[in-house]
């Protein structure tokens, strides 16, 4: 039982990260029906910027927590800028083009960002400085570290903040209106371009935080770390119902738990025919299952024609 609880904790932590990243996919999709495949790279850039800042500040003697906060504080605006530039330069000129064009562009942007990062931060896997001492807490035979608690708490807070922004503010209303029908929203005096740019920027900010969290959690950052994470988060967004904000949160957490439990138990269940190396496959099995059985996802209301 304690092993099961531990696997669930592992899954929830992973799921919280997926959820944060999935939000970026789903918000952009909801508003312009674009799958922004470069979103995973924004996560990576967040991790890399934090890596550089922590590296620069570590010898300064500031308290470790402050350094990490400053690092996140630098990563967020940088990622927002990247998100904005991406939208402005790569996607806005293609607004109104056939759906395939921006999709291919997104893949191109992803490759460009990855290689830019490789030039800046080298192709080596970087050891993310572990300046905050990790405390472990035990309960019911399971272990949870301070980093895991921080990840869960921060992602909960960020998601609550996002939900409040989308459902409680004028800006959120404008976002939802634009998502619903950009032309009519425009007629109502909403600047659709501004709202779309803002959506990218907000998604990028979440991605930056996710990047810092994932790099501190695993203690490693790498220029290619964003692609796999991005794909998984995309699966999570589809699982929850792409375009649906609560769906992305639910999908992310569920996917994390499915992965952890799947990897933890598949060996025992199949008599070691399939091993834990199939961990990465679960996300894609889920993706296929959702697309076949329920294309609109768990919470999605839209029909599957947009997926």
């Amino acid at each position: 039982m304690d092993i099961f609880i531990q696997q669930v904790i592992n899954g929830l932590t992973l799921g919280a990260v997926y959820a944060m990243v999935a939000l970026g996919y789903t918000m952009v999709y909801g508003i312009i029906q674009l799958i922004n495949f470069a979103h995973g790279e924004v996560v990576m850039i967040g991790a890399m910027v934090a890596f550089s800042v922590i590296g620069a500040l570590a010898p300064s003697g500031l308290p470790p927590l402050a350094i990490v906060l400053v690092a996140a504080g630098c990563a967020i605006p940088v990622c927002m800028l990247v998100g904005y530039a991406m939208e402005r330069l790569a996607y806005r000129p293609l607004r109104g083009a056939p759906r395939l064009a921006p999709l291919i562009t997104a893949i191109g942007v992803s490759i460009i960002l990855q290689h830019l990062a490789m030039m800046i931060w080298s192709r080596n896997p970087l050891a993310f400085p572990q300046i905050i001492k990790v405390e472990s807490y035990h309960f019911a035979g399971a272990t949870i570290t301070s980093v895991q608690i921080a990840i869960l708490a921060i992602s909960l807070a960020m998601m609550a903040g996002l939900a409040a922004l989308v459902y409680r503010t004028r800006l959120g209303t404008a976002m939802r209106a634009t998502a619903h029908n950009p032309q009519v929203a425009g007629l109502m005096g909403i600047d659709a371009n501004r709202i779309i740019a803002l959506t990218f920027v907000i998604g990028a900010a979440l991605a930056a935080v996710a990047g810092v969290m994932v790099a501190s959690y695993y203690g490693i950052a790498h220029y290619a770390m964003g692609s796999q994470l991005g794909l998984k988060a995309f699966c999570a967004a589809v699982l929850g119902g792409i375009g649906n904000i609560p769906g992305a949160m639910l999908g992310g957490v569920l996917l994390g738990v499915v992965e952890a439990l799947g990897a933890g138990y598949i060996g025992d269940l199949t008599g070691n025919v399939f091993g834990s190396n199939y961990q990465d496959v679960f996300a894609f099995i889920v993706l296929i299952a959702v697309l076949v059985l329920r294309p609109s996802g768990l919470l999605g209301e839209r029909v599957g024609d947009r997926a």
Partner: protein
Amino acid sequence: MIRSHFGVLAIAAMVGVSACGEDKKAQAPATLTIAIGSVAPLTGGIAHLGKDNENGARLAVEEANAAKIRIGGKETAFELLAEDDQEDAKVGNTVAQKLVDAKVAGVVGHLNSGTSIPASNIYSGANIPMITGSATNPELTERGLKGVFRVVGRDDQQGPAVANYLVANTKPKVVAIIDDATAYGKGLANEVEKTLTAAGVKVLAREQGTNKTVDWKAVLTKLKGRAPDAVFYGGMDSTAGPLLKQGKELGVKAVFSFGDGACTDKMGEFAGSAADGLLCSQAGIPPQAASKKFLDAYKKRFNTDPILYAPFTYDAANLLIEAMKQANSADPARYLPVLQKIDFAGATGRISFDEKGDRKDAEMTIFTMKGGKLLPIAIIKSGKTVKYEDFVAQSTAPAADVAKK
């Protein structure tokens, strides 16, 4: 910085190829240009190790050029054609073919077993000798291919070495084995398992990740429930570091042991304080036990210390050059027999090959980690375990004579 470096490399490679082609056309070239290939992953998760391998070979080539070696009565300019195999067998075969087409005289590489084994077919088919400084999977030299050599030990020597050390010193009852599903990781893990089983140790069902896995929590949590006394992981440092860190975080009380791919100082950075007390093995001797002359030259040239296999790729390149010199020809048909019978004092000690192309009497080293630094604790040679200090004391500068050439 990286970009400019990369650009220079690319240009150097292009110049190398074109220079080579022109020399062939010219009737009586004043100098003989001999191209030597070097293949390792220069992008991806272990690019740092790939660059280290390339640097080793590059240093050897540059020294040979500085020494103004004459082959066939002509002044000789060696060119190093460095290629990136991206740790991928398909790309590895492509660059191997590219080097064959560029008519290289010999190849240093590849880094990984998974790329070296398929590529060796191509080199051998084209009668171009290859010497790897780091591929340890036995299969490489077990297929009777001509002209395939390695200057490091094999997994079936390394696996038993680390397993025996574990049995003798940790005395585990239950051991969990994990690998990264690569030819290297799996092969090494298999050898460890064989030795442990033979020693009567219970080995749990194999767990696997991939060579990109950073989330090991699910696997480790499962293992924690089985309470192993020791864990062995066959894989590289960029995955082994997170594995070790997460294992300690989850409270897995076991000695973590690794093969050479995860026997680098990077483990201390990736895993932090969790890395203290790990056990790992390296085929051959540690880079810091290579000849002082090599270490100084490397530091001077690249402004950094060798990470892992640079001394071996340095020796591999030197072996090619030395064999060409002795045969007085860069034609593989002429110098290959010389290489097969060579007896060479390299930066990693004395090198000669058995009939398969494996290095005779290859040493294995067992390390632990203390305060983020790897400490060699034992050297295993021909089945005998010697404490590291004793080894250093008795081997008086094994390679002082690199200078000879």
